[in-house]
């Protein structure tokens, strides 16, 4: 899709200004129902588009992303548009700088349309934990779009943006991509700079693209990937091509992902996909990942521990919080009240739950039993995946255990919501690149997501392989 639009821009079949206006027109028509966007910035977008048009008019060469309109998950800092992370505690926050990914895309001429909705601080699987509103699934407005990058997935699906950025800590790009029926790519941990991403769980967080096609995901990933001096966990990913022919390519299908609790229609759709892939001469091999059922438990110790530390910075003083203290004489308060009241009132339920849980697993007497135990299991899970990738090239699984659920269906019981990430979370625990592809649709036309996982640093080869699978499944 990006390549086609790029061609149209160079051939002067369409102007960047027209393209941006068209997208705002679709947003005007659709977003009052879908509610994918938290903030729109039309004026700046059009101004940027004019600059691209001037270049084209002068017959200057333009890059592949120049003039392409996109959407940004609202936990990624933009200095021209406010960044809320879906939280009331950041209701008025305007970042003093752009995130590394935003700066890169800006330099390449891509144009931000607006910021998309998410579960507060990216904690959730449905956008129902947003401090503002719930985004609706464009396939069925009664259903959730998935989360936490639900706004980004819905915006791309409803053609309200050419592509969108999301972040993935336990499945937050792939699960909403599966629920909305788009491509969602979670790169290797560290492949994309996290500088300017509002931290949730720093050893798991990754930024990645949500797109209509795998080719688009590749274009965006290439633009945002790379080592950044401002993120010491960032690494350079080698641009390795996928060269193997099908007969030499072994795709592992782990039996632990096809158990009770997996929706029958999803199972059927994935099995059909596997048959089609087999018919194209790829080798399919049943494998076992005995530790994968423990990934989610491991995640629900490590993630809240990191959350409790990362969210300590929201103290009621920095980041423009607006508790009703503004007109009060500050001397009538004390600092302690300010902390307790701000954090108690402005954080939502799920965020508070995770902060308290994280505080618990890190506290004296429980640290060894929970936190350290989880860090040991994490190492074993990583080893299990390393061993697996000595035997197979890729691992194929369903992305989610269920089809998109109804709004309100899982809000009462946190564990039932957490289980939405059961198939995606392993890739975060082990730092692996993983992608969601659309593998088909249910009887009620709800999309079914297929996940392909590869080894650390194998991002480009995974994307190229996924392009082949995408064309097979079409």
């Amino acid at each position, binding site marked *: 899709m990006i390549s086609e639009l790029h061609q149209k821009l160079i051939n002067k079949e369409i102007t960047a200004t027209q393209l941006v206006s068209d997208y705002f027109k679709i947003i005007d028509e659709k977003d009052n129902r879908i509610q994918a966007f938290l903030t729109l910035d039309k004026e700046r977008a059009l101004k940027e588009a004019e600059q691209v048009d001037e270049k084209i008019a002068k017959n200057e060469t333009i890059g592949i992303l120049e003039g392409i309109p996109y959407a940004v998950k609202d936990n990624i800092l933009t*200095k021209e548009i406010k960044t809320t992370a879906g939280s009331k505690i950041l209701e*008025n*926050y*305007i*970042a*003093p*700088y752009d995130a590394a990914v935003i700066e890169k895309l800006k330099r390449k001429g891509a144009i931000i349309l607006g910021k998309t909705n998410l579960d507060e601080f990216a904690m959730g699987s449905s956008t129902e934990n947003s401090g503002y509103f719930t985004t609706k699934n464009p396939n069925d407005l009664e259903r959730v779009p998935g989360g936490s990058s639900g706004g980004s997935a819905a915006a791309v699906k409803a053609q309200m943006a050419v592509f969108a950025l999301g972040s993935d800590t336990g499945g937050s790009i792939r699960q909403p991509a599966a629920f909305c029926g788009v491509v969602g790519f979670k790169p290797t*941990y*560290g492949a994309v700079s996290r500088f300017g991403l509002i931290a949730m769980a*720093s*050893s*798991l967080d990754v930024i990645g693209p949500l797109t209509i096609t795998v080719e688009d995901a590749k274009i965006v990933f290439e633009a945002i990937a790379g080592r950044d001096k401002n993120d*010491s*966990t960032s*690494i350079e990913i080698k641009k390795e091509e996928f060269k193997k022919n099908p007969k030499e390519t072994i795709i592992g299908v782990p039996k632990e992902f096809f158990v009770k609790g997996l929706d029958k229609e999803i199972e059927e759709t994935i099995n059909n996909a596997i048959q089609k892939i087999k018919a194209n001469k790829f080798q399919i091999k049943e494998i076992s990942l005995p*530790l994968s059922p*423990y990934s989610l*438990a*491991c995640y*629900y*110790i490590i993630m809240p521990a990191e959350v*409790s530390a990362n969210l*300590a910075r929201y*103290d009621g*003083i*920095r980041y*423009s919080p*607006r508790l009703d*203290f503004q007109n009060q004489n*500050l*001397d009538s*308060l*004390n*600092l302690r009240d*300010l*902390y*307790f*009241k701000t*954090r*108690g*009132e402005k*954080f939502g339920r799920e965020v*508070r739950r995770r902060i*308290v*849980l994280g*505080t*618990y697993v890190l*506290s004296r007497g429980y640290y060894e039993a*929970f936190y*350290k*135990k*989880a*860090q*040991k*299991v*994490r*190492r*074993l899970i990583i080893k299990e995946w390393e061993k697996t990738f000595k035997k197979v090239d890729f691992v194929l699984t369903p992305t989610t255990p269920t089809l998109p659920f109804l709004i309100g269906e899982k809000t009462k019981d*946190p*564990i039932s919501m957490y289980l939405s990430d059961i198939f995606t979370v392993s890739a975060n625990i082990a730092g692996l690149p993983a992608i969601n592809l659309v593998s088909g649709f249910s009887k009620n036309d709800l999309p079914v997501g297929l996940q392909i996982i590869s080894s650390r640093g194998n991002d480009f080869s995974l994307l190229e392989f996924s392009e082949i699978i995408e064309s097979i499944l079409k």
Partner: protein
Amino acid sequence: MEFEEINHLLELSRMEIEGEEKEKLSKDLESILKYVSKLNEIQTEEVEPMTGGSFLSNVVREDEPKVKKTEESNVLKEMAFKTKDDYFEIPPIF
């Protein structure tokens, strides 16, 4: 989970939560802790715990003070609910 324990955790987390929600929180925590306790089924003796998401070694730099650009620090200052000279004004500590 005992009420006392929840209160202690809220104290450490610097959050004020009202009665009814505290009960729900306590129940939720119990069920989550029960769920994550299934890690005890895994033998982890002599396993070195992970400490982060990557296998990179530390990147160090000189610890030199840096001055923010005035435009950046102005944006930050605008976000304070009160300022005095170049400082944030906050309620008294005690």
